[in-house]
Each structure stands twice: as structure tokens, then as C-alpha cells.
């Protein structure tokens, strides 16, 4: 074992929910808070309003990363992964604890930060490089490599606002990937670009790891974690749940989806049947893996887990997709109303590629047993579909959802 590249000791980050939510604090707020403060203090003294307005995004996290390790950081949305990366990248300060980093740390929390649309590709390479801490000499040395990696040679003196989104992202990733850092922190950038570029990016990162650099990769792409990482950190509700082997880590993460604890809140469901038919959790699978973010260019399967407290002769179960409050489609788990036995059930829905469009969908779900006996949950769960910039079909077809169709031109 070599030296530690990153040592994290009892790190914690607390957000005051009031501050986090109220983004535009005005003088009025300050004055009114000031007036209310004495009352608030009295109430606090009386033992109310305690934990409610404070929230630990990250709590008591300690781990050690050796030089040259490639660590996969996994966890569901809101588990604290991003907060950890923000602290390590020094974007935000921890509330307690300490982190020590040996060597130069480069973070790719989002590619293309600091790109200016009016500037040319060339100018943006220098700008972006400088923002990430590269010296001008380093950028000059790597310039040709960056340009050819991104494949934008012809457009290097064109303002980037004229770039396709694919080119833009490729250039941004290329600059970041060529930064000579000892510790590379990457968040979700692999969800960009087309499949070929994603593969190229993965290879680049595994290159970096092989050359003895330390890599910290946050991704929902479990395949990438398996290929690239030697160890995983699994986060759950702000705490480090597990640190160790990739296989165990990924398995643990997958189980967190199926467990009822991580599932729905039953208060979201209403109707006469709410006590008898329960919906527990819903996951998306792509290529067999559970995913948090859906890739629009791959087939997807939805697995809905639930339970029934008794047997019903006929039940019609449906899930409905909403976008900006508009129902774009609904799907039923059986061709016609069918029997539902007492106990647990799993409904599976298979979708071909190109059905979901980049952005966020809300899912509502419910069941009808007989006229007047129903259960419905609106906006039970949200899911995000990744931007497949530079992808094939997503660029041309428009709308809230993709239709499966064949077409030809006869002349």
C-alpha cells in the first residue's frame, strides 16, 4: 500500500434549510427575521423548532484513498455524493471535520463550466484551462492533443455558440481530461456525448488511473464503475454506508432500491383501496443494471414492486407518465383486468429505446379493483432522462415522448 492521496476525517456538512431554500434573501426578510428572532428564541427555549430547519447533507464521513486508487462513489440522488465532491473540490466548506489532499486536485463536476459562448474554441480552451488551474504553458503543450481528442479541428476558430451540443461537450471534456492532476474527481460526465465518445472518455479515465493518478468517480453508470474502479464508497442519506470491494458495493447499492425502506411513502396514495393495495418501490433497469438516470438510447425496463392484503378477482393496474403536469402516456401491466393474489407482486414494463426524451418525468400509479374502489398516487416518483447530446435520433424528433415507428421515403 502506498501513501494516502485523500484522507477524510469525520467530515460533515450541515445546511440551514432556511438559507438553502430562501435563495433571494431580501432586506425585508432580514428585518422581519430580526423582529421575529426573540419569539423564535423563546420557542427554541421551550424545546420546539429544533432539528427541523437544519439538515445534514453529509454526516461523520471518514475514509482513506491511497495514491493510484480508482474509487467509485455510488448512492442514490441526495445521498451526499455531490456534497462530498463539492467539499473536496473546495467549492463549499465543511461544517465539521477535515479532509487532506496530497497533490493537485482537478474536479470535473460539470464539463464546460466557464465556457463563454461568444469566444472561439481556441479561446475557450485557454479560458477553461486557466479556470481549472492549468498554466498557459501547460495548455499550449496539450493544445493539439485536446483539439484532436475532441475532434473539432475544423471549428477551432469558430465561436462555441455555433457548435452542436455534442461538439461543445466533447471539447469541454477534452480540456478537463488533459489536465495533469494527481487526483481527478469526476461527477457524471460520462452521461454526455454519444456512445463512441463515452467509450473514449472511459478509456481516457482508465488511462489516468493506470498512470498512478487517483480517480474519484461519481456515477450512476454501474458498468463504468465496475470497469474502472478498484474500490467503492456507498452513500446513503448523507452517511458512508460501505467502503470496500466493487462487487459488494454495487450489490449493496442495488439492494437499496428494492428495500421497502427506500421506497414510497404510503401517505402519497389515496382512495378506498389505499389500505389494501400498496405500492412499495419502482426501479428502472437498463442492460440489467438499476439506473437512476435513464439513457434515452437504450431499452428500459420499469419494475414496480407492491403488495396486496387480499386477493382480488380483477385489478387494473396502471402507471402514468407526466411531463410539466401533462399526462403523456399510461401503461397497464396486464392486457385486460386480471386477478391479483394476496401477497407481493412485481409488475414489469419494457420500453424500446427512443421512448423517453431528455428531461424529467413524474410517474403516477394506481389500481382499480371494481367501480368505485381505487387507489391512486400522483407524482409518486420522478426520473430523469439524460441529455444524449450528439446522439442519433434525439436530435431530430421532438415532443414529450418518442413514438415507436418505422418510416421510409418512396420516390
Amino acid at each position: 500500500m502506498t501513501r494516502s492521496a485523500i484522507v477524510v476525517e469525520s467530515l460533515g456538512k450541515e445546511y440551514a434549510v432556511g438559507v438553502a431554500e430562501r435563495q433571494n434573501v431580501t432586506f425585508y426578510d432580514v428585518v422581519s427575521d430580526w423582529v421575529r428572532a426573540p419569539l423564535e428564541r423563546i420557542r427554541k427555549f421551550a424545546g420546539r423548532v429544533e432539528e427541523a430547519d437544519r439538515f445534514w447533507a453529509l454526516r461523520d464521513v471518514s475514509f482513506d484513498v491511497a495514491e493510484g486508487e480508482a474509487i467509485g462513489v455510488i448512492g442514490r440522488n441526495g445521498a451526499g455524493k455531490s456534497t462530498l465532491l463539492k467539499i473536496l473540490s473546495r467549492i463549499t466548506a465543511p461544517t465539521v471535520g477535515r479532509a487532506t489532499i496530497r497533490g493537485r486536485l482537478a474536479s470535473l463536476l460539470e464539463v464546460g463550466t466557464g465556457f463563454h459562448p461568444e469566444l472561439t474554441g481556441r479561446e475557450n480552451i485557454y479560458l477553461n484551462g486557466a479556470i481549472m488551474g492549468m498554466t498557459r504553458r501547460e495548455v499550449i503543450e496539450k493544445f493539439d492533443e485536446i483539439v484532436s481528442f475532441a475532434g473539432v479541428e475544423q471549428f477551432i476558430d469558430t465561436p462555441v455558440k455555433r457548435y452542436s451540443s455534442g461538439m461543445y461537450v466533447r471539447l469541454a471534456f477534452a480540456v478537463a481530461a488533459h489536465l495533469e492532476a494527481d487526483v481527478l474527481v469526476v461527477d457524471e460526465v460520462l452521461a454526455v456525448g454519444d456512445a463512441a465518445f463515452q467509450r473514449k472518455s472511459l478509456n481516457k479515465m482508465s488511462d489516468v488511473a493506470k498512470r498512478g493518478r487517483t480517480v474519484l468517480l461519481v456515477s450512476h453508470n454501474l458498468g463504468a464503475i465496475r470497469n474502472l474502479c478498484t474500490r467503492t464508497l456507498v452513500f446513503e442519506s448523507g452517511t458512508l454506508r460501505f467502503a470496500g470491494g466493487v462487487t459488494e458495493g454495487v450489490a449493496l447499492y442495488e439492494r437499496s432500491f428494492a428495500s421497502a425502506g427506500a421506497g414510497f411513502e404510503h401517505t402519497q396514495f389515496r382512495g378506498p383501496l389505499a389500505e389494501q393495495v400498496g405500492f412499495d418501490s419502482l426501479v428502472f433497469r437498463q442492460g440489467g443494471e438499476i439506473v437512476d438516470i435513464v439513457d434515452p438510447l437504450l431499452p428500459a425496463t420499469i419494475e414496480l414492486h407492491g403488495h396486496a392484503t387480499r386477493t382480488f378477482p380483477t385489478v387494473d393496474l396502471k402507471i402514468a407518465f407526466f411531463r410539466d403536469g401533462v399526462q403523456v402516456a399510461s401503461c397497464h401491466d396486464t392486457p385486460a383486468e386480471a386477478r391479483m393474489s394476496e401477497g407481493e407482486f412485481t409488475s414489469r414494463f419494457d420500453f424500446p429505446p427512443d421512448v423517453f426524451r431528455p428531461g424529467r418525468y413524474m410517474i403516477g400509479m394506481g389500481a382499480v379493483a371494481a367501480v368505485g374502489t381505487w387507489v391512486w398516487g400522483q407524482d409518486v416518483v420522478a426520473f430523469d432522462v439524460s441529455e444524449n447530446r450528439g446522439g442519433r435520433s434525439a436530435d431530430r424528433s421532438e415532443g414529450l415522448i418518442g413514438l415507436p415507428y418505422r418510416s421510409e421515403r418512396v420516390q
Partner: protein
Amino acid sequence: MPAETSAHERVTVIEPPAGWRLLNWREMWGYRELLWVLATRDVKVRYKQTVLGAAWAILRPLLTMAIFTVIFGRLAKVPSDGYPYSIFVYAGLLPWTFFASAVSASGQSLVGSAPLVSKVYFPRLFIPLSSIGSGLADLLVSTVILLLMMMWYRVGWTPRLAATIPLLALLIVISLAVGTILSAATVAYRDFTHITPFIVQIWMYATPVVFPLSLVPQRWRWVFYLNPMTGVIEGFRSAFLGRPFDWIALGSSTSAAIVLMAVGASYFGRVERRFADII
């Protein structure tokens, strides 16, 4: 964030912020190239996709001067210490325009760079600092115009012109100090987005820009001396027009600049760690 970085082997320690602290000069030195890149970015972007391009840098001050000359010089007959009003007002407008644009630009700079602040770390102070880049470029252009106009109006160049260099430093320090404080305050209180233009506007009339300080009654002059911009504007005017300097005004400006700079740096250092959380 408090971070100690040693040159031979870089070890960064990230800890919770602890009270007031001074700026991390060593770290800023390490990032110095970024300051240059950010400042030149603004200059490059400024006149892209405009028909007249950099000609705006010449037109804007000339048009302002023309309007002020007509309104204050001709209609209101504001005295100008015996110099042609155009030259007189232009010599004052030159530093004032820089101050006004620097304060507005740096005041808005942090909020305008929110995506940057919440995604990547570098010394935050560079954002307000670099935002004055395009103002400096404009100042350079307008100075050349003024020198040419002086030849046209037969106002001689004197050795006092050399004083513009230390005066420029004083002007930059005051503008940056005020801009930095406003930029940090704007992150926390968006009210400053609306307040800043008023501050700048009112400040102009509290400064001898369109009128000479000699117009102010002697017993009220101390009020103007409290304004750090009085010394700067009068100083520039004296340097260009070749008349003696008002040392009281200059002295009070310099001390105010030092105080403002200290206040600005420590206030910024105190609040910068929260930017990403509240921006």
C-alpha cells in the same frame, strides 16, 4: 476555505471556516494567469457582434461629454474654472466613467458568475477583480481622446500629466474596494442589484464631476472631502489641465482608499466561503 499549499509537495487541508481571515495571497499568486485570462475574456467579448465594435469605446465618452457640455455647460452655465467646459467635464468624466462601470460590473460579477462559483474552485476575489478589465481598456482609449482634444483646444500638456499614473492606482483601489464589497453583498442580498445603480448615480452628484469643487461653498467643502472620489476626480483634472493639486482632497482619498481596501478584503474573505451555498 482555509487551505495551505506548499510548493514542493502540494498538500491541501480542507477545514471548516474559522472567523475572519486574511486573503490567501500565495494561492492567488499561483492562479495569477487566471486573473489575466478572465479580464481579457471580458474585453474580447465586449464588442463581439456589434456593428461598430471597438468604436463604441470612443463614441460613448464623446457622446456623454457632448450631452453634459450642452446641458451643464451651455444651458445651466456651470462654471469650469476658466477652461473650455468640454475639456473640463471630460477630464472628470474619464475617471468617473471608469469608477461607475467598475463598481457596477464588479458588483454584479459574482451573481453573474453563479455557474462558475458553484462548479469550480479558484480564488473568488478574481471574479470582481477581473471584471474591471474592460473598463480599464475603455479608460485607456478615452485618455488618448482627451490628449488629442487638449491639442485641439490648445490646452498644453504639462509634466503634471505624470501624476495620472499614481492617480490611476488610487482610482483602481477605490473602485475595486467598493465593487468587491458590493459584489459580496449582492450575493447575500439581491436588493443590491437595484440599489447599486442608485448609489452610483447619487455618488456622481456628490462628486465634483460636472461642476468644479470651487463651486462648493467653503463651509460645505469638508463633506466633499469625506468622499474618496473627490480627491481622485480633482486630482485627474489637475494632472490633465496642469494646475496645482488639492492635497487635502488627495490625502483624504488615499486614507479612505486604504480603509476601504482593508474592509473590502476582510469582508470578502469572511463571506466568500458561503458563496456556493447561497448564490
